[in-house]
C-alpha cells in the first residue's frame, strides 16, 4: 500500500513536476444574473486536509459542488491527480461527498448504505460484503450493520456517511458542514476522530464550514471565502496573525477594529484620524484614504489613563462598556463608535473583579501590532 502510494506520487511528478493534486483553475458559476463563484483558483496537495471557510452565501458550497460535479461550471477547469474532470458527470469523477444532513438512504440499512457505491460500481457481492465490514470497523459501527439508518443517532449517522464515502476509495473526499448537525461536545469528538482517520488513510479532503473553530480544528490550511472569491488561503497561524484583508480580520478570530481617515503619511508611517483621536501606525496610504485599523485583542493591554504613554505604543482612551469573564481569560470591551470594536484580552479572571463598566480606560498596543486595510473600496 505504501509502495503503491509512493509509486503513484512518483508517476504524478513525472507528468507535472509542481502541479498540485487538486487544482481548480479560473472556475466560475452564475445562477441567472448572480455570480456565485468568480474566476476562482484553488489548489490542494495530496493528503492535505483543508477547509473552505466563509459566511453563508459566500459560494463555498457551490465551489464544493463544482469540484464534485453536482453542479457544472460555466468556465474554468477542475483537475484531480492530473486528470481533467471538468466535463465529467458527478458519478464518473470518483469524488465522494459527505452531506450536511448525511443524506443516508432511508430505505436501506447501514450495511446497504455503505455498500451502495460499490454496488453502483458493479462490484461482486462477496467483495462488497468484505469491504463494507472493513469500512464499518474503521468508523466503529460494525455492530450496527443490520440496523435501519433511522434508528441511529446523529453521530452514528455521520460515521455511516463517512464510511459510505470512504469505502469506494475516492480520489478526493468533500465534506459539506459535516459537524453542524451535532451538539458541541459530540462535534469536538467527531472532529478529532475524523481528522485522525483521514490522516491514517492519507485521504485528501476538503471541509466546507462557516465555523472558524471547526476549520482550525480539522485542517492544515484554510481558504477564507467571501462573495464568491477566496480572500486568503493560508495556515491558521498566518490567517490569525497576518490576515490579508479586513474581511479575514473580522471573520477569523476576535479583533479590535477602528475606522479612520489618513491625515498624514511620511516615511512608512501614517497618522489616522479616528473617533478616539489621532493614532500613528506603520503603513503606506495616501492622505485622505479611508482605512481600517485592526489589532488582535491579546496584543492590547488596558492601562490607567493617567500613566505616561511610551513612544513605541499606540494609546486610545474610552469608557469600559463590558467585562466578559471567560474563565482562563477576560475580554474588556470599550465604548466604540458605530462599526468599530474595542476589545482587549487579558489572561485570568481577576480583571473582571477589579474593573467596572463605566470607568475610564486606556487601551495600549505596540505600533507594529496594528494591521491596516483600505476601507470602503470593497
Amino acid at each position, binding site marked *: 500500500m505504501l509502495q503503491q502510494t509512493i509509486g503513484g506520487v512518483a508517476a504524478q511528478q513525472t507528468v507535472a513536476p509542481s502541479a498540485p493534486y487538486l487544482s481548480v483553475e479560473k472556475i466560475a458559476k452564475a445562477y441567472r444574473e448572480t455570480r456565485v463563484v468568480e474566476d476562482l483558483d484553488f489548489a490542494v496537495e495530496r493528503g492535505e486536509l483543508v477547509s473552505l471557510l466563509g459566511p453563508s452565501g459566500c459560494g463555498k458550497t457551490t465551489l464544493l459542488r463544482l469540484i*464534485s*460535479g*453536482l453542479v457544472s461550471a460555466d468556465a474554468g477547469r477542475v483537475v484531480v491527480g492530473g486528470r481533467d474532470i471538468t466535463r465529467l*458527470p*458527478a*458519478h*464518473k*469523477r*470518483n*469524488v*465522494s*461527498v459527505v*452531506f450536511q*444532513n448525511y*443524506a443516508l*438512504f*432511508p*430505505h436501506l*440499512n447501514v450495511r446497504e448504505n455503505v455498500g*451502495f*457505491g460499490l*454496488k*453502483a*460500481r458493479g462490484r461482486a457481492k462477496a467483495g462488497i460484503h468484505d469491504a463494507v465490514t472493513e469500512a464499518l470497523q474503521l468508523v*466503529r*459501527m460494525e*455492530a*450496527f450493520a443490520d440496523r*435501519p*439508518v*433511522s*434508528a441511529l*443517532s446523529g*453521530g*452514528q449517522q455521520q460515521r455511516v456517511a463517512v464510511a*459510505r*464515502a470512504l469505502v*469506494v476509495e475516492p480520489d478526493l473526499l*468533500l465534506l459539506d458542514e459535516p459537524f453542524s448537525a451535532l451538539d458541541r461536545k*459530540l462535534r469536538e*469528538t*467527531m472532529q478529532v476522530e475524523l481528522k485522525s482517520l483521514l490522516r491514517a488513510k492519507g485521504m485528501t479532503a476538503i471541509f466546507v464550514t462557516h465555523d472558524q473553530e471547526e476549520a482550525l480544528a480539522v485542517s492544515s490550511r484554510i481558504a477564507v471565502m467571501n462573495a464568491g472569491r477566496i480572500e486568503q488561503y493560508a495556515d491558521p497561524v498566518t490567517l490569525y496573525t497576518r490576515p490579508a484583508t479586513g474581511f479575514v480580520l473580522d471573520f477569523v478570530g476576535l479583533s479590535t477594529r477602528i475606522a479612520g481617515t489618513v491625515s498624514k503619511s511620511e516615511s512608512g508611517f501614517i497618522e489616522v484620524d479616528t473617533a478616539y483621536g489621532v493614532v500613528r501606525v506603520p503603513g503606506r496610504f495616501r492622505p485622505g484614504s479611508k482605512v481600517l485599523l485592526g489589532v488582535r485583542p491579546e496584543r492590547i493591554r488596558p492601562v490607567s489613563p493617567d500613566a505616561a504613554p511610551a513612544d513605541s505604543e499606540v494609546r486610545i482612551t474610552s469608557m469600559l462598556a463590558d467585562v466578559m469573564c471567560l474563565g482562563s481569560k477576560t475580554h474588556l470591551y470599550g465604548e466604540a463608535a458605530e462599526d468599530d470594536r474595542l476589545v482587549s484580552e487579558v489572561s485570568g479572571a481577576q480583571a473582571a473583579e477589579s474593573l467596572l463598566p463605566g470607568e475610564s480606560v486606556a487601551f495600549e498596543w505596540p505600533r507594529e501590532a496594528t494591521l491596516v486595510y483600505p476601507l470602503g473600496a470593497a
Partner: protein
Amino acid sequence: MSVALPSAEATRRPRLRVDPFVLLAAPGLLYLAILFALPLAILLFRSFQASDGTFSIAGYIAFFSDPHNLSVTWRTLKVAILSTLLCLVLAYPTAFALARARGIVQSLILVAMVLPLSVGVIVKAFSWSIVLRSDGIVNQTLLALGLVEAPVRLLFTETALVIGSANVFLPFMVLPIYAVVRQIDPELSPAAASLGAGPFFRFFQVVLPLTLPGVIAGVAFVFSLAISMYVIPSLLVGERLSTMSMLIARSFLFFRDAQLGSTISAILLLMAVIVVLGSSYLVRHVSGGRA
C-alpha cells in the same frame, strides 16, 4: 465506543395503552359503520338469499354461467387496469414536477390537478363526446395530419372509456405520489451520484423504491374507483359495452333481481378489496417498516 452508547430505544418498552388520539377517529368510524358497513353487510347477506328467503348460492352460479357476465367482468377489469396504468404514466412525472416546483408554478399545477374534480363527471363526459365525435376535434386533427384516411371511431369504445376515466382519476394518482415525493430528501439523488451511481441506477435503486408507497396508494385509489365507475361508462359507451356497475344497476332497477344485483356487487367489492389490501400489504413489505 465512547459515543456509541446504547440508545434510549433499547430501554424503551412497548406499553399497552390506548392512545387518546385514536378516539378522534371515533365520529368518522361510527358514521362509516352505520352508513357504509351495515348496508354493505346486508347487501352481502342478500347475495346468498333466494327470493323465498332461504340460503342459496344460485346467484353466483347464475352469474358465472352466463358468458355475457364474464365478458363484462373481464372488460371492467381490463378498463380499470388500463386506466390505472395510464394514470400512473401521466401522474409519476407530474408528481415530481409538483414537488420540485415553487411558489406560483406549484400552485398552478396543484389547481390544474384539483380544479377538474369540481366539474361534475356528467359535464366532463358530455364534453368528451364533443371532442371524440367522428367530426370532433380529435378526428379532424388526425385527418388534417393525414394520419388516418377516415374518421376513427372513438366514442362508444373501450379506448374512450380508458381515456375518460384516466382523465377523472388522474388527481387520485398524482396526489399520493406527490405526498411521498415531497418527503424525499432532495440530497439523496446527488448523494447517490457522488457515490458513482449513474442516472438509471439512481432511479431504480433510490428514487423508485422511495416513491413506491405513493405509487401503490395511488394504484389502489384509482383501481378501486375505475373498477366501480358507473356514470362515465353509461355516458361514454352506453349499454353497448357494459361494466359491472351498469350490470348491478340494471339488475336492481330493470330486472328487479335483488339477489343477482347483490351477487355482482359482492364480486365487484371482492375484486376491489383484493387490490386495496394487496397494495397496503405491498406498502408494508417494500418499505420494510423503515420508510
